[in-house]
């Protein structure tokens, strides 16, 4: 088995609300191994993005605060590093791509300058070398005529182009761990496929690197990930290799997600999961999914289930698999 690159252990992140603190990320443990793409799946507001920002120590504070846990990156706890060292790791060893390519680029600078800035921050290159590298990165992410495009301002580029620029910027310092937060959500379906292919292509060339792909789109998961972790209301409720998850989902929530996917050619109605995600300020007793669960039984509304390990590489937070 490949070596673990990032090991998140019992990470908790709280947000201070009007009615007291709420736990947006609740004791999440997750291992990301070298060379793999781990998909983090869940509905909006389940804590996916907060988890990624927690690893980078960029949770907006206030109101957010990382209250417990570790994030061991190559054996060193990111959450305990001095601020200066953490800043050096950001952008060089750890990089992130955001959902909105429209707003993630500074509108007043040329895109080449922005990539070059990221490079200059970490590698002692002079302005000319950094610019050349920026152009080379734009070429690498498939932007035609990169020398010319590097002189464009963000508003002159399309959404897909901008996301390519973001990817070029994130990859410019050759990071070990790439956190991709819904990198394709804001894009057209055809562009989505291109961007996913681009991501897996550039990541495969990098030995020992890993990607955490945050998404709510199971199609993206099937296409791009090696393993999946499903999040619900701040907790990991199921973790599994991709194939096994799609063949045999264990948690009723995961089953519901898969059942709610539209099937081409089928005239059946879609099967949504009834109810809505509980607010993290007002979580139900026992299992957090039990009010919406079609298979709930005796212990579910009283006792929160721990993670069970029903198979190799698989874990699930459900009493059914005790």
């Amino acid at each position, binding site marked *: 088995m490949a070596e673990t690159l990032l090991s998140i252990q019992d990470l908790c992140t709280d947000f201070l609300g009007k009615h007291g603190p709420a736990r947006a990320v609740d004791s999440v443990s997750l291992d990301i191994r070298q060379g793999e793409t781990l998909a983090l799946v869940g509905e909006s507001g389940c804590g996916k993005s907060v988890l990624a920002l927690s690893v980078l120590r*960029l949770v907006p504070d206030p109101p957010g605060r990382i209250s417990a846990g570790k994030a061991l990156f190559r054996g060193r706890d990111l959450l305990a590093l001095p601020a200066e060292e953490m800043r050096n790791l950001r952008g060089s060893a750890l990089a992130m791509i955001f959902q909105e390519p429209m707003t993630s*680029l*500074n509108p*007043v600078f040329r895109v080449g300058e922005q990539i070059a800035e990221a490079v200059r*921050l970490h590698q002692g290159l002079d302005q000319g070398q950094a610019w050349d590298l920026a152009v080379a990165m734009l070429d690498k992410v498939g932007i035609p005529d990169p020398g010319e495009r590097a002189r464009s301002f963000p508003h002159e580029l399309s959404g897909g182009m901008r996301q390519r620029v973001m990817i070029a910027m994130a990859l410019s310092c050759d990071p070990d761990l790439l956190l991709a937060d819904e990198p394709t959500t804001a894009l057209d379906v055809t562009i989505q496929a291109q961007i996913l292919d681009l991501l897996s292509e550039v990541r495969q060339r990098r030995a020992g690197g890993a990607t955490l792909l945050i998404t709510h789109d199971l199609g993206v998961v099937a296409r791009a990930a090696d393993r999946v972790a499903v999040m619900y209301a701040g907790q990991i409720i199921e973790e599994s290799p991709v194939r096994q998850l799609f063949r045999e989902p264990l948690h009723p929530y995961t089953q519901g997600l898969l059942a709610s996917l539209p099937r081409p050619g089928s005239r059946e109605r879609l099967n949504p999961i009834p109810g809505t995600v509980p607010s993290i300020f007002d979580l139900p007793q026992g299992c957090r999914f039990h009010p919406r669960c079609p298979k709930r039984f005796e212990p579910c509304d009283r006792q929160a289930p721990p993670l069970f390990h029903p198979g190799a590489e698989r874990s699930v937070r459900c009493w059914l698999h005790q």
Partner: protein
Amino acid sequence: MRPLTRPSLLSRHGLLVLGLALVGVMSLAALLAPWLAPYNPLDINVKVILAPPSWAHPLGTDALGRDVLSRVLWGGRVSLWVGFVAVGISTAIGLALGLVAGYFGRLTDEIVMRGVDVMLCFPSFFLILAVIAFLEPNLTNIMVVIGLTSWMGVARLVRAETLGLKSRDFVLAARVAGAGPARILLRHILPNALAPVLVSASLGVAGAILVESALSFLGLGVQPPDPSWGNMLMEGKEVLGIAPWLSVFPGLAILLTVLGYNLLGESLRDLLDPRLRQ
């Protein structure tokens, strides 16, 4: 069918063009005063005391026979210089404090913004008067004091812009790339916050020119015999009945310059405001 031509700059932004023209003409006249002025502004000529406008003296002469046109031109240098330096000082202070307060928030923000509130409590013109009365009323003191008493608006403006900008994704992206606070403030937030500052600076120049004129009019500004629009007005008021040109022309110069900067500022604001942009 109407031809598909773009409307000209003049028709779309008439007031902007007018403001630019006024500002341009007045600045040029002041800059070129040594070459444009027909006489030395300090030269006394007792043969032409209080002469009305004529070919020899286009704007007339004052009680000491000095040429009013030359004095208006040289006085313009003082006014514009005061305007620019004072606004430079106040904008620099306002930018720095606004950026820091908006970005770091919490206690820093509280301290800076309460400082702003305190400064705004003083009626600034009387504060300037009092300070200048204590210090020597020379040009440097005037510029510095005007600058030090007019930065609060800029600080509030920049703080508000910074608050909005710091939660934007590209700032987060810069932090993810490993940029520190100084870099984020100077490269990512400052350039995006400059548009309203430009507007406020333009209006600020107009305000500073008015304050300088008022100080000079009260005798606490530029000291005679050096000309400034304000002290020319003061000298003119004694003989307003018999020699109105002494007051009319410097007054007109103040009016046109201040109008120019105000028009420029207002139309820049409209131009830079995305909600009003077509």
